[in-house]
């Protein structure tokens, strides 16, 4: 168990160290997130009355589109110098690779959200500070589900030729239930409905996360091998 924790820690450390040194991925993803928020603003209008009911959808679509970029990059660095093959050769449980990649991606996407959410609040005049605690819970649960599936499908796509195109094609349909749940919960909170149907959606997100984490954990070894 200790050896597996060491392996998981090694992957998180390696991914974040490489990212910290280049910042190429983080800058690109944050820039894309800002751009998407702006484009939604132009398309829908930034008046509070028109924006507030759909703010949840805008936030989560921004997370989805920008976060998907980071998943591709996460495996790209493994493919660059044949490092993925070396990763597969290390002793121990290959599920540690998945958990390590998942944690690194989770920290990365959460960091992007820390920048993206205040930007959205500023652009669309959203009351995020009033509901920060429940909003954080929904964001965390939604992001865990998103990153779990993203990490899993990015591993699968890494074995395909047109991986940049294939990842969204594989990932987005699977994210529909998560997207519905996260949008409903976020929208409910921003509209002040914390204890009503929002609570049901929060529990739905939790169950989604558990089911797909366990499924991805056990299927990972089969998709990562060539």
């Amino acid at each position: 168990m200790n050896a597996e924790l060491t392996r998981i820690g090694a992957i998180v450390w390696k991914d974040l160290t490489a990212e910290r040194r280049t910042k190429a991925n983080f800058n690109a993803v944050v820039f894309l997130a800002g751009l998407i928020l702006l484009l939604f603003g132009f398309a829908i209008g930034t008046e509070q009355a028109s924006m507030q009911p759909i703010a949840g959808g805008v936030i989560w679509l921004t997370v989805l589109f920008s976060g998907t970029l980071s998943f591709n990059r996460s495996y790209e660095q493994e493919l660059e110098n044949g490092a993925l093959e070396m990763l597969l050769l290390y002793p121990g449980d290959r599920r540690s690779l998945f958990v390590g990649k998942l944690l690194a991606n989770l920290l990365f996407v959460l960091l992007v959200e820390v920048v993206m959410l205040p930007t959205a609040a500023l652009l669309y005049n959203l009351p995020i500070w009033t509901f920060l605690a429940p909003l954080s819970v929904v964001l965390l649960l939604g992001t865990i589900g998103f990153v779990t599936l993203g990490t899993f499908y990015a591993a699968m796509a890494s074995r395909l030729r047109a991986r940049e195109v294939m990842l969204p094609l594989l990932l987005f349909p699977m994210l529909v239930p998560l997207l519905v749940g996260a949008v409903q919960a976020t929208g409910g909170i921003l509209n002040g409905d914390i204890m009503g149907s929002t609570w049901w959606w929060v529990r739905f997100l939790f169950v989604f996360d558990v089911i797909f984490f366990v499924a991805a954990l056990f299927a990972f070894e089969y998709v990562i091998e060539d």
Partner: protein
Amino acid sequence: MVTENGMTPRPSLRIERATPAAVAAEGLARRFGRRWVLRGIDLTVEAGQIVALTGRNGSGKTTLLRLVASVLRPTRGTVSVFGFDTRREGAEVRPLVGLLGHSAGLYDDLTAGENLVFAQRMAGRRADGALISAVLDRVGLAPFEFERVRGFSAGMRRRLGLARLLLRPPRLLLLDEPYASFDEDGIDVVNAFATEIRAQGGAVLLSTHDLSRAALVLDRRLHIVDGQIVESSELRGPTLAGGRA
């Protein structure tokens, strides 16, 4: 010991477990798309042997090494390492195997030392700075321990890949074109490492186009043509000097 296709006696599983060969392949075949790269390889490499795979580009040498390493799944047939089936018992195979492939599998944005720290931690161990310095010194990269790999030449990358293997010497060493990109010193380090593995009861399977480099250490040569072993010859190192695949 007979290795030509179809001629290898097939011992029972019980006998294999009692005296397992370092590598035992039966009817091993692999297809990429519609192209069969390997077409039924029967192969035995005993512990204490250094065996070279020779053959033209695309003959299947690298694919065979990757199958033995358990990073590729066979389309047909089986391959075992010290008695463990690579498909069903990959977790037992991986601690026994070390592979130096065409690409060294390094991370450009980490330093040489950090790449080795990562390798140690991925092996489930704590980072050992003294050992890392020692192996970097052995491959001639000690002055570059704190430099990022991005600026390394192809030869330096191969040396660092070799240093990673030296951290945890495997029982079965797989070397894909180990003499490519190396200067004379590097070749000496490769050959010394291979003979150490053999002396410790392990085995080495390497692919090469240049037998003269491996001449002093080789025990056997297997020649592959179009995914099949067509020739097997017992060798005694010095007699091979100057020979080519």
